[in-house]
């Protein structure tokens, strides 16, 4: 009688533990850095939408986007920004990186840009494509 009451609890507990372990393993796999060599002549073009709210007076959206791009470039990979950040209008910007970023670096750059790294600016990465 007592076993019949305990068994469902044990079953739920086992399922919960299994799900938790699976989730942690999946997260570990997703956040694991796996880099590979890229051709130094290749480039990556990052297109993003930016918007700001409550920014400091005299601080332009372009300045903030450029600052964020530089900061994330330093954080993510050994790559250089080729040329200035280009404003395409309606809050859309474009920047070119040399060399191309591998898959993990692309994810890291996207995460860094869309993260809450700098106050008063929010960025959506539209695309990262090789050029």
């Amino acid at each position, binding site marked *: 009688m007592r076993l019949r009451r305990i068994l469902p609890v044990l079953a739920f507990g086992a399922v919960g533990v299994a799900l938790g372990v699976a*989730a942690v393993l999946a*997260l570990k796999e*997703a*956040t694991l850095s796996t880099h590979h060599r890229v051709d130094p002549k290749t480039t990556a073009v990052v297109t993003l939408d930016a918007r700001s709210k409550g920014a400091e007076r005299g601080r332009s959206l372009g300045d903030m986007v450029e600052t964020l791009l530089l900061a994330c470039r330093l954080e993510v990979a050994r790559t250089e920004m080729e040329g200035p950040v280009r404003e395409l209008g309606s809050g859309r910007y474009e920047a070119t990186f040399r060399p191309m970023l591998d898959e993990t670096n692309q*994810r*890291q750059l*996207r*995460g*860094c840009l*869309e*993260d*809450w*790294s700098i106050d008063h600016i929010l960025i959506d990465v539209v695309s990262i494509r090789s050029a």
Partner: protein
Amino acid sequence: MKIIAWLAGIATLVTALAYLVVSLNRWEWNRALFFGLIVLIAEVGLATALILRKLGQLAARPPIDAEIAGILRDSRPAEADRFAWMREAPNQMSVFITFLVGGGVILSGVAWIVDRLASKTTTPTGEARLAAQLAPISYPSGGLLVPDATVLAQEVPGDDDTRLGRLLRGTGR
């Protein structure tokens, strides 16, 4: 109202946890930290609420009716007094003494039986067999004293042997 508060707390916890995992998966560390903080706050809030609810339930429990409690106490079966025999009773012989004396008598009887059985194991035939077995290690028939002939034969060749002299006379020369 309480249900709404509980639901809000649980929803906050679950949503923040989901966003935490999503942020980690997207490499958005600042967002992950923020949502982790929300998870922690919601968790502490819910745990505190659970403890307070439990304390409230304890306080709200109706008092026990003393009359009913007394009836229940009186209806308990009497506890078995397993060591009553050890108490000192001046007018009656303690059962412990009885056991002690009885045990002594039984042990004495067993010892007497063992003694009788052991005495029956020694028979004349057995004694003769034992004597035959002990013969090889018995003393020599003339005793351990050196015979006179040996004493008179002191001045013979080889008498200067110290070890032989010690063997024959007990002193080496």
